[in-house]
């Protein structure tokens, strides 16, 4: 009986050992993953504009340059981690929303490089639906927000006005702005872009007022027209310290980033992606096909590529 117990213990220990040993083969691992040479990995953020960039780049890389493109769904901050390790090669649209990561990887570790501007200008702000702004033109100035709070009250925000927020991954200083400007408002997080879009559409269908964190370019803007609430003018350094922000959001030139190894040794694919540059209108066009016309993403991208050879020919590597 005792022997049995020893042997049973032995088997258990052997199983434990096998677990540990199986996982660690000897030798040194390569810290930077580089997939097969003809595959380009492009991450897609949760918003449709980002999907459009990648879809068009994918069409051209696959159909004209003979690469295989692997797309990955992930959030903006995680993208920097992916670029750092080489699991993703290039990020097509960054809203400069994660300065900490940017500093760490681009400046300190130098594993990620800036690959030029996308050509699209993004702007974040506080928006109300245009039908409400027409009825109450005074809403366009932030100073009148306290007077108008009764229109924006919901059960979630209690006796304050509701400021609808989107996904936690978006860059926002709204809570700080509300505090620093002493506004009787409360941020309520939808939790995801999908939920925010749904909420906006629902309220717009009933012509109800709402105040939301919103941005351009955004596909929904052509379906539900929005008007911006002017926040205090930007002064130099007004958004330097996150807890002291009390001014409007900037206009951001959306930027591309690349894994350094890919940028240097990525051949034609890297060269093409560095040259990739299109306007807000072009991007919005593709996004509209994808969303409002409910076209498949790849179809919409193919349609754009077919219609605009003069534009993408300029991006081709020499």
């Amino acid at each position: 009986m005792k022997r049995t117990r020893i042997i049973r213990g032995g088997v258990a220990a052997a199983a434990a050992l096998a677990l540990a040993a199986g996982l660690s083969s000897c030798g040194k691992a390569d810290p930077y993953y580089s997939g097969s040479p003809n595959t380009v990995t492009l991450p897609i953020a949760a918003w449709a504009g980002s999907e459009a960039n990648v879809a068009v780049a994918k069409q051209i890389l696959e159909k004209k340059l003979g690469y295989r493109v692997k797309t990955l769904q992930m959030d903006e901050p995680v993208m920097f981690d992916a670029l750092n390790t080489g699991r993703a090669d290039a990020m097509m649209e960054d809203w400069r929303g994660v300065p900490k990561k940017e500093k760490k990887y681009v400046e300190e570790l130098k594993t990620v490089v800036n690959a030029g501007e996308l050509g699209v200008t993004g702007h974040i702000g506080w928006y109300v639906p245009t039908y409400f702004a027409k009825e109450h033109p005074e809403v366009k100035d932030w100073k009148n927000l306290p007077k108008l709070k009764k229109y924006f009250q919901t059960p979630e925000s209690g006796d304050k006005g509701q400021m609808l927020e989107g996904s936690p991954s978006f860059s926002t200083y709204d809570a700080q702005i509300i505090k620093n400007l002493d506004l009787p408002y409360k941020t309520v997080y939808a939790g995801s872009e999908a939920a925010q879009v749904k909420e906006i559409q629902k309220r717009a269908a009933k012509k109800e007022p709402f105040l939301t964190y919103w941005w351009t370019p955004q596909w929904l803007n052509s379906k539900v027209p929005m008007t911006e609430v002017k926040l205090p003018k930007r002064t130099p350094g007004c958004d330097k310290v996150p807890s002291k922000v009390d001014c409007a959001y900037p206009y951001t030139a959306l930027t591309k980033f690349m894994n350094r190894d890919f940028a240097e040794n990525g051949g034609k694919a890297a060269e093409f992606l560095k040259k990739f540059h299109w306007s807000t209108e072009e991007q919005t066009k593709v996004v509209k096909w994808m969303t409002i016309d409910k076209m498949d993403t790849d179809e919409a991208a193919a349609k754009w590529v077919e219609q605009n050879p003069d534009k993408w020919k300029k991006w081709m590597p020499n």
Partner: protein
Amino acid sequence: MSTTTLPQPSEDKEKEKATAAAPATTEVSGARALLARPALAAFGLVLVALIVGALALDGNWPGALNWSSGIKDGLDWLSNWLTDNRATSPLFLYFLLHISNWSEGGVDYVFTFLNNLGWLGVTALATAVSWYVSGAGLKVRSLRIALLTLCTFGVFGVLGVWEYAMSTLALMVVAVAVSAVIGVLLGLIAGLSETGNRILRPVFDTMQVMPAFAYLLPLVLIFGIGSPAALVSTVIYAAPPMARLTALGLRGADPAALEASRSLGSDPWQRLWTARLPLARKEMLLGLNQTIMMALSMVVMASVIGAGGLGDKVYQALSKDNVGLALIPGSCIVLIAIWLDRVTAAAGDQLDTSPGSTRTGGDAGAIALEKLGGWLAWGVFVVFAAVGTLFGPIGERSWPIDWTVSISSPLTKGIESFTKSISDGIPVIGGTDVWASHFTSWILNPMRDAMQASPWWGVLLLVAVLAWMAGSWRAGLTGVLSLAVLGALGLWDKSMDTLSQVIVSVLCTLVVGVVIGILAARSRWVMRLIRPILDIMQTMPQFVYLVPVVALVGVGRPAAILAAAVYALPAVIRITTQGLRTVDPAAMEASRSLGSTGWQQLRQVQLPLARPSLMLACNQGVVLVLAMVVIGGLVGGGALGYDVVYGLQKSDLGVGLSAGIAIVCLGLMLDRLTQSAGTGKRGGTK
């Protein structure tokens, strides 16, 4: 995420749990006995103390016991260290990065393999293998399963998601293989050694209760985005059932068989290989089935960290507010789940009959065909593999585009008009939207405010007394300690907010679930009608119903509560039905002969006798609702769920992980409370 969720297998597990709890039935009048106990007096005293204390003392969590800043600093430091030392530390170079590179390579390899087979090859191969493992031959069952496989793969193609489905399958193949191997090894440890079992049991509990979102982030930092982190998180989530059931099988081996083996002079090694493991294979196969189901749901969830595949499709469709488009990959996932579940279940039943011993006569042709079947399946495999690697795919790599149909936009329109009409289209009584806002103002807000305003020591005391009354002092201790951790993390208020949502959600689920469960238990017709619906509800990725939920009740806590209730409902219904059905027929007959009506029978015989299952339903409801707290964060649930999502999306380990731990603590507390109530005195120890 979920803990035990899936259609068939969970039912088996539920049965198992229900029978385990059965001895407590003897204590039918437990509730009444409880009233006679002095504990009630204690309960009353606590209530009085609470009220007095709330008026006299400071109810906020004491600052001295709030260690949140220290914990957060530590986690932030850890997160920085991980990113800084990834390329230099030997821990990474000689260990972690191997896992990471190996898993990326493995998944890529399987994907390339499937891709090289081409769509025809993959479909033929899958059909042949399913047919073989479900018994081969010309039996109705194996043919039906072969047909199901064929249809499943056909649907991938027709709906235009072939490539995404292949990438999900590739990740699944690797994840299930690794989970099964690790599960069996851990199961060996827990099954053969008593110490091993004691050490591993709480580890398994934590692995299953911890919301997956909380550990996705550290895994991304360690293993990198994409397949590696997805694979590791899937293994963490899916290996425990395999390990648990393997251990259960090893322990439950028939002593007579072992004795026989011993008397034949076999040494312990031989006994393990020839007696113990073979005797445990039925449990092990059930474990594999559960592991597959859980791996599937995790693989979908992992799309948020770049796992790719069908989950990506769901996620992207949602951000474009296109429910129809999200439903397509969603239903493909359901199909995969049904297919894999049926195949493993058939393979399990096959174990009972297959060795040929039970079947004596039979027609020789069928037996020959069966023997041939094995060779045929392997032959098909080898031929396709060879052709695939040598000459490239047969036919095209993926499904021909001309053969796809687009059904998403009519689907979207249908769902949109439906949700719109019940959200505010109903005259007089308003519609779901109006109800939701009343619900928030009149139930949720007061409840949350009351819970947040209650003094912390009062809540601790209340939980301790409740647990003690219901079960054991040990359950009370666990509950109190878990709550103390919430305070120490500095998340007291948020936890109370989440707790209020969880309680409301569990109550709603229980009321609706038990009513439907009673109906289903009393009428076979109802059961047959709801069964496929329950299957779908349990396997559909939770992301899919977020958008319709928001359309119905708008962004906010009601949406989170509704989503959680929808998710937990199937398990509650199943357990209730199961419990009512298994009530002793003699007792039923006796009451019928005494002339009681259907209603009396239900109230006086069935429900009291089914009490253990009802308590189990309550326990499972709590666990499942809690698993949805994070998903609720995506539709405005706020509090802890939002923090976990925030941590993941902003890569903020401090916020994300502490909120994750807080959810685990709430889970532990509620689980112990409900569990000990279910098993009477023996609570606290699982």
